[in-house]
């Protein structure tokens, strides 16, 4: 156990130096990736990533297919540990405890209990709506019926789906529409009140209306939870995020306030990607 609690670093400098007045100011960091490397076997998928994740704000990861943005996201909840022959280097520090999330000494299950995830394809369990949301709570030992019901309702309300499912709590979650399923998955992740919520292209399997609802939801959620979102859709990054990080070939090319990245990126590669020259 680390006895000396390190000083929390200052907010990233770019928010202060930024000339664009409309650009977001970064909150204190919730997590900090430092010199993060990641290997699948001998294949290095992430190279020396340094990124600050500000608290209660939305950070978007963009970049062409295969650039490592999903790989990076999955480092935050140690999803890679489920596969053999994967290896992390460097650190992702979670504040305020200064826990290195990717350290071998930190239990990946503990990490996943603190950091929630919403996946690309809606993946509700083939159980009832209620049991889907209650599952994370049950894992944590919540058994009291009243308390479970309260927390499930709160999570469903938080995910803006309560009104649609309040009469169908005991129906199978597989009977919902795709967009509803994805919001149910968000509720499932919210129920345990995670410190960071990871979104891995959460709307790529949804139609535009369902997508709009999810985006609206993300904008609301950022007041309560720190959000990291991977997206293929640059308009989506521009709409929902405060900060945007552009990744290419396993490296972090540029990170800045979203309004700055999309209007005046400082790197040529970022500009080329945003203007659609590749990717």
């Amino acid at each position, binding site marked *: 156990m680390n006895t000396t609690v390190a000083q929390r670093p200052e907010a990233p400098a770019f928010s202060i130096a930024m000339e664009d007045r409309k650009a977001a100011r970064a909150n204190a960091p919730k997590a900090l990736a430092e010199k993060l490397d990641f290997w699948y076997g001998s294949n290095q998928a992430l190279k020396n990533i340094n990124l600050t994740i500000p608290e209660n704000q939305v950070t978007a990861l963009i970049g062409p297919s295969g650039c490592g943005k999903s790989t990076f996201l999955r480092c935050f909840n140690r*999803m890679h540990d489920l596969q053999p022959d994967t290896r992390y280097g460097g650190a992702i520090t979670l504040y305020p405890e200064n826990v290195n999330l990717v350290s071998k000494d930190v239990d990946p299950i503990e990490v996943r209990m603190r950091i*929630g995830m919403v996946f690309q394809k809606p993946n*509700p*369990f083939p159980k009832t709506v209620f049991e889907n949301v209650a599952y994370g709570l049950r894992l*944590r030992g919540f058994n009291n019926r009243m308390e479970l019901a309260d927390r499930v309702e709160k999570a469903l309300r938080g995910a803006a789906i309560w009104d649609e499912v309040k009469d169908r709590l005991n129906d199978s979650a597989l009977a919902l529409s795709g967009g509803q399923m994805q919001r149910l*998955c968000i509720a499932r992740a919210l129920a345990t009140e995670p410190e960071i919520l990871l979104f891995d292209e959460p709307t790529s399997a949804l139609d535009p209306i369902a997508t709009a609802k999810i985006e609206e939801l993300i904008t609301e959620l950022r007041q309560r939870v720190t959000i990291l979102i991977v997206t293929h859709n640059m308009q989506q990054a521009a709409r929902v995020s405060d900060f945007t990080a552009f990744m290419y070939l396993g490296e972090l090319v540029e990170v800045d306030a979203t309004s700055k990245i999309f209007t005046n990126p400082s790197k040529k590669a970022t500009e080329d990607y945003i203007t659609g020259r590749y990717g």
Partner: protein
Amino acid sequence: MAAVMTIEEMRRGLTWRKNLDKVFVILGLLVLFACLGLLAILFFDLVRDGASRFGWDFLTQFPSRKAERAGILSAWVGTSMIMFVTGLVALPVGVAAAIYLEEYAPKNWFTGIIEINVTNLAGVPSIVYGLLALGLFVYQFGFGQSVLSAGLTLALLILPIVIVATRESLRAVPKAIREAAYGLGATRWEVTKDHVLPYSTGGILTGLILGLSRAIGETAPIITIGALSFIAFLPPSPVSGEFPFLNLEWLRSEFTAMPIQIFNWVSRPDQAFQANAAAAGAILLGMTLLMNGIAIWIRYRFRKKINW
């Protein structure tokens, strides 16, 4: 742009290709009906030969030296008890082995060898299982020539079937579902017991029943361990009137089974017993078809409930 062929040439070619399609359909149907037809003929042949023997008496009477008074009571009770033991042993052992191999075992040469062996076990001649059981269960463990020995032997026999079927249905649970559960902080065992196992119950039960319907007709291994062909008593009842209400004596009882009874009757010179054999054969075949039917029904029910 000029086409590579005229429209007439195209049509001629297309007719020829579509005819080939039809030829295959006809061939396929012929082969299919040949197989099903043979089974049907066999079944009706048995029914016709045994027609004189069907009836309540046939099911409720013990074997006898007089063909017209002989029944299959001890045989079908014995078979049912053996199947019960077989299922009770093969299900937990097979499922546990499959879960270990599929969910826990690291992928290395050692697990590779185990996997190949499990698959190979399915091809071991059943008489070999009989010999193993004779040495191990009957003599070494002292279970004797009992229902228990027979049940354990047949459980060994169908274990590979249960393991392979279970592994397949575990594997059918999508990775996304596992990730969802892991993502909420579940341990491997919690993912298995709360999700993977319940969602694959249909496939597991189907595998078990298919295994049982293989076991129900097995003759060689239970002859080897000493099934008697003439038994004019029933094993003690599993439930008793007084505390503790459950009686395990039936496990130690001597037994006979349907295939043994049939074998015994067929080998008699007296023509009258042939009708008995045919009737018992038809009933055994019916039992097998019924079990397969249940397997299909279970699969259908679970498919309807869980649709990835």
